[in-house]
């Protein structure tokens, strides 16, 4: 079979090829240097704080570092803010001010422009927050296990460590970019991206993270304090005993049970025993399902892995939508 190719005018013109990618380097830098500088300043301040705390925790024991558990809550908002202030305006500002009509009709092409703008910023925010996350892990290290009993898998700090902090920021950034493209206005897009990110973060902590690996089950009542205990129940001769049965039993023995807490009445049949000890003496076994602290790194990589895939999908969708979009 002979194929004859007749060059169309398009192909002839095309021989010149696309405008080289490197040309966008200056454009992206010129347009986002202020944003990047702001990011470096804010994250730099956070890093200095972490360094001081980590240093104190090492010199004077964990007490100084204990304040980190409190400030951790503030750290949680960093990815959301980066998503809202760097990600969301990226396309929303172009669409809101109409500059996309200028930029997207230049020779570079709008899909390639989007790639050349989104990708470098995605890499920058990931690297910067990776550094901050590493510093957090280092500063928080002395608090894990031991006498401070911090649990590295706990929801309040797990996503602030090295890998996941960067991955969550990347996810927030991608969500912000997508929100900006869909909503086309800066401020609403910022709010939408923060809301969407928070929903994803909460849903992950509650529904997803406990199931990265099947929890271990142990009847050892003295689990290491760094374990992430998910649920505890009682068994008798290998059968699970319902919590209402346990409560009845304790009430008969003279304990007061309200809600989940058990308190002792003076002079009850429990004597000097704690309710747990009492139950153990009466042939019950306490069973816990938990995630051991040793799974920390595999959990980190699992979470970072799917977040990376998620972010890449979202960013690909952004490029595709820009390419396909009907203005």
């Amino acid at each position, binding site marked *: 079979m002979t194929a004859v190719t007749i060059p169309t005018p398009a192909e002839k013109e095309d021989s010149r090829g696309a405008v080289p990618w490197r*040309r966008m380097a200056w454009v992206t830098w010129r*347009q986002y240097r202020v944003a990047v500088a702001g990011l470096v300043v804010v994250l730099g301040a956070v890093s200095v704080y972490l360094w001081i705390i980590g240093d104190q925790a090492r010199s004077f024991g964990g007490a100084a570092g204990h304040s980190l558990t409190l400030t951790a809550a503030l750290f949680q908002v960093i990815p959301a803010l980066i998503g809202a202030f760097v990600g969301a305006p990226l396309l929303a500002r172009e669409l809101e*001010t*109409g*500059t996309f009509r*200028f930029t997207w*009709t230049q*020779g*570079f092409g709008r899909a390639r422009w989007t790639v050349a703008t989104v990708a470098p910023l995605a890499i920058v925010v990931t690297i910067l927050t990776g550094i901050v996350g590493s510093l957090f892990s280092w500063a928080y290290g002395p608090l894990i296990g031991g006498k401070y009993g911090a649990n590295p898998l706990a929801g309040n700090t797990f996503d602030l460590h090295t890998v996941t902090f960067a991955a969550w920021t990347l996810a927030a950034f991608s969500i912000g970019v997508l929100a900006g493209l869909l909503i086309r206005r800066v401020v609403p897009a910022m709010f939408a991206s923060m809301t969407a990110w928070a929903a994803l973060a909460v849903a992950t902590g509650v529904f997803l993270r406990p199931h990265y690996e099947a929890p271990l089950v142990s009847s050892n009542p003295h689990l290491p304090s760094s374990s992430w205990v998910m649920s505890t129940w009682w068994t008798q001769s290998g059968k699970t005993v319902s919590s209402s049965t346990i409560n009845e039993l304790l009430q008969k023995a003279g304990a007061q049970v309200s809600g989940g807490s058990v308190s002792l009445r003076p002079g009850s049949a429990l004597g000097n025993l704690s309710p747990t000890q009492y139950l153990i003496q009466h042939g019950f076994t306490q069973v816990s399902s938990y995630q051991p602290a040793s799974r920390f790194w595999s959990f980190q990589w699992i979470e970072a892995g799917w977040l990376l895939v998620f972010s890449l999908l979202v960013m690909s969708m952004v490029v595709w939508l820009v390419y396909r979009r009907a203005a």
Partner: protein
Amino acid sequence: MNVIEARGLGKRYGSTWALRDFSLALPEGHVVALVGPNGAGKTTLLNLAVGLSTPSAGAVTVLDGVPAGSRPALDGIAFVAQDAPLYKNLSVKDMVHLTTNLNWYFDQGYAIARLGDLGIPLGQKSGKLSGGQQAQLALTLALARRPQLLVLDEPMSALDPLARHDFMATVMTAVADDGVSVLISSHVLTELERVADYLVLLTHGQVQVAGEVDDLLASHRVLTGPAGDAETWVEGLATVHVRRGEAQAHLLVRTDTNAYEVPPRFEEHPVSLEELTLAYLRVPEAASLPGPRRAREAAPKEIAR
């Protein structure tokens, strides 16, 4: 070569068609005025032609058959959108540098010299420039790309008369020097009357009139005669529009039909482009197109007032 060619083009926003079953071929080498009332589909057509939006139906090609929005199309077309959007926080110099980087070819020497002539300071933030200067900057950035086709969407709507004049002077210099084809949309014809040599009149997402200005003017006449006689002749002549006065009636008629003759007691006058455009705008169902005529055109309708 046709700089823009649309076949069966349609663009729908939600359930409304901004353009529907739209066909048009614009030959190169003209300054085309795209005129029509607000909402006629001018911006929609331009967005489709520069590749900013994708058709819901049909296709539009540019620069001799290149799909709109493709790489060679982007290379060969420069577009100045309505209100000349620029990065307001960038200096004029940075805008020049940015546009240079975004294109294969950009004549920086021309751009800098032109901005100098216009007295636009290179260090100024583009957001701080006057409306006229912003429009001139956007136009200079477009022309320095040495496009084959320059597309301007209502470029002068925000400008004062002097700035309009200067803006059009820049465009016409480029036409004279480089032979660039130009497509300008506007809802006011007056600002284009002196410069446009091709007219496309758009109404309700359809081409109503398309043709070279000279041909259009040559093929239309105003017949002025007694108001009482007008009714007698309207049917027989290819009348586009009738304007009745107290004593006299003015009939805008087409002269390119066999039926054309000046009725007794009527006088024949040439028509101005503005007059012609206004007449067609008042009669959206009348049409004047090049090439094969539409069937319904055979009997242009008289307008009930």
